[in-house]
């Protein structure tokens, strides 16, 4: 299973805690880094302070992105990522509570790899984490543009 760092861009602390709980429960031990707004997300990805130390804050191989963020919206972060030459291929999964068709269409249009609606029941969140694990971390080939070592998908 790929051991890339996952970057979670989310301002709601409870949602972060829930995800941490569920990742642990489904055996996903990838390092999880969280930032709480668009500016921090850009700084993290660009390696700006206070995220300059790549040993402490490695570049993620997968981004989970909420849309409802203060200062810069999730869309703006996504658009920014797709404009950076080194980050263009970075898989971004939008992870938001909005199920509005306009938001969904815009996210895919702006280059999100997938759109996930935050479920309200823990069981559904667990199912999402499992699907994420099996597909993105086990089967999917992540682009190795970021210098992170990825493990070949396990055959088991």
């Amino acid at each position: 299973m790929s051991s890339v760092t996952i970057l979670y861009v989310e301002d709601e602390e409870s949602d972060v805690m829930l995800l941490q709980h569920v990742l642990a429960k489904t055996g996903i031990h990838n390092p999880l880094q969280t930032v709480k707004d668009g500016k921090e997300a850009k700084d993290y990805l660009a390696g700006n302070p206070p995220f300059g130390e790549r040993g402490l804050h490695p570049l993620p191989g997968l981004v989970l992105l909420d849309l409802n963020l203060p200062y810069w919206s999730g869309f703006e972060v996504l658009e920014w990522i797709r404009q950076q030459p080194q980050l263009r291929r970075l898989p971004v999964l939008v992870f938001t509570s909005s199920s509005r068709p306009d938001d969904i269409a815009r996210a895919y249009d702006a280059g999100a790899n997938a759109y996930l609606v935050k479920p309200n029941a823990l069981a559904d969140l667990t199912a999402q984490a499992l699907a994420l694990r099996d597909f993105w971390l086990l089967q999917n080939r992540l682009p190795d543009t970021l210098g992170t070592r990825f493990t070949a998908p396990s055959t088991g």
Partner: protein
Amino acid sequence: MNKSEGRPIEILLVEDSPSDTELTLEALRDFKVRNHVSVVEDGVQAMQFLRRQGLYSETPRPDMIMLDLNLPRKDGREVLADIKGDDQLKTIPIVVMTTSRAEQDVLRAYELSANCYINKPVDFNQFLEVVRSIEAFWLYVVTLPPAPKAGAG
């Protein structure tokens, strides 16, 4: 979660290997989320299907595309570029499924805005497992994009 709301999810499978096609159809057939698979065997047919041209004038718009890279007549990479370059089609998620393990191909596919990249296993059971994980993620957990409102032309 993806609520099909009574309508099956439309999948376009672009695959020239009959055995791989058969395996994929088999795996998709029993999935808990209703889906309908259309199959085309080369890149030219794929574009005709998506653009509703020729024989394919009445095709449904796919909610998701599974695309092999090595196709006759028109290469899968070209198809990928064409789809993601078309405003009306680019939001459709594309799951690249291919035998190529080359790092360059992976990079290139993501460069062309493929949504993800899957290596087809040789082993039959593993193949099923892969399709199951595709189903669980793309057909169940993911919310697929709505069709765009009709633009000019």
